[in-house]
């Protein structure tokens, strides 16, 4: 058995060909997931049972089942319905890319809405009461007091969720997408040098994680610039 360091170096550029798709999946699903998460959060925070319960059920299902199973339900499962195959959605749902985006967004929305809820619940009640006393409307209180503070509180957990999303994009390789893990798997099938190739891919993922964490540290510093230490 030999470990070929040169192979790591030569395979890096090949694996990087999948970087674009990995980042594409990450950015598109994160943004769609965030939009969805805000909607679910609002339902979850409302006082109407018929809004709260669907949100709870959604969160329960998507956090309680493996992402891979969700992806398979969407990619392999949905085409079972002829109705769907003849609808306007079919051009999207037959593409592994959109199935992956859909699974990733639906999945992350459940986690992000809970992260944001944690932030909202962490906002000091006194501040909201002060807002009321100053005659701010409900909408003003939500947008000027609750939201900015909740986002600040939720940032650390949100950065972890982005990292976990990056890692989840690797699952797209199971539905034939050639993102970084998919490319690495193809190269391993050709060369049968699993250590070198997969370690090369791991290095790229670790660099991306580092970039995400550094970026969020900066954002957190910016968001907390008014908070006096000590």
């Amino acid at each position: 058995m030999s470990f070929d360091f040169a192979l790591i170096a030569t395979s890096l550029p090949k694996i990087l060909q999948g970087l674009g798709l990995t980042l594409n999946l990450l950015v598109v699903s994160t943004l769609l997931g965030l939009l969805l998460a805000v909607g679910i959060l609002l339902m979850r925070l409302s006082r109407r049972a018929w809004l709260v319960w669907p949100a709870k059920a959604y969160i329960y299902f998507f956090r309680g089942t493996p992402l891979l199973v969700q992806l398979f339900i969407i990619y392999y499962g949905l085409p079972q319905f002829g109705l769907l195959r003849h609808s306007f959605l079919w051009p999207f749902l037959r593409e592994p890319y959109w199935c992956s985006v859909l699974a990733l967004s639906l999945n992350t929305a459940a986690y992000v809405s809970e992260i944001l809820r944690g932030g909202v619940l962490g906002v000091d009640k006194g501040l909201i009461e002060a807002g009321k006393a100053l005659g701010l409307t409900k909408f003003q209180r939500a947008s000027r007091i609750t939201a900015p503070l909740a986002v600040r509180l939720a940032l650390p957990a949100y950065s972890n969720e982005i990292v976990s999303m990056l890692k989840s994009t690797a699952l797209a390789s199971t539905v034939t997408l050639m993102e970084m893990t998919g490319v690495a798997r193809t190269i391993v099938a050709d060369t049968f040098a699993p250590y070198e190739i997969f370690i090369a891919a791991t290095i790229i993922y670790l660099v991306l994680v580092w970039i995400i964490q550094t970026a969020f540290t900066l954002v957190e510093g910016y968001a907390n610039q008014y908070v006096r230490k000590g």
Partner: protein
Amino acid sequence: MSLLDGWWDDFFFGLLTVLKVFVVALAIAVALGLLGASAKLSNSRLLRTLAQVYTVVFRGAPELLVLLLFYFGMALTLTWFVQLFDPSVKFIDLPPFWAGSIAIGLIVGAYMTETFRGAFLGVDRGHVEAARALSLNPYQVFWYVRVPQMWRLALPNFGNHMLSIMKDTALISIIGLEEILFVAKMANSVVHRPFLLYVTVAMIYLAMTTVITLVVSQLEVRANRHLRGTR
């Protein structure tokens, strides 16, 4: 559900496999978590660095990648190793069960390391000093004073890590272990009802994660029973 007739036993044995992987991976993760946390809190710079590298790599790399690396890599290493003794051997691979359990144990062990480290730091130093003053040896201090108190603080995160292990078991179907997702794939090639089959898999996982959540909340009540009324 007549559609699943003839597949119930396969799903049942698939579920047993999932549970076995869960138990083995959990044991590995807890052991690595305790070792990792002890290393991170030790005085030795070498141990601290090693533990740091371990947590950075295994928390940063995609689970699927670690699993593939482990499965295909170990096959290569094992074959090489066995050929040293018996050159006639062509190929040996690590059974998917062990490759999967070890890979998941390693990944979640890295998360456990961080959880346990934080929880150990939360244990009042005075208790440890008191135990030393009572002449307990380091082993006793660790198991009778540090671990029981750390446990209470670690429980909520520990529960989340157990859920991660349970959900990660689905990945092992990719390397060919016959767990429930794999059974669903097989069944689908015969009955062609992918939606129903994969939703069945999802429901089984949902039941498992629900049980884990309930157990953890009971454990939390138990771990905090002596604190009732003081907080």
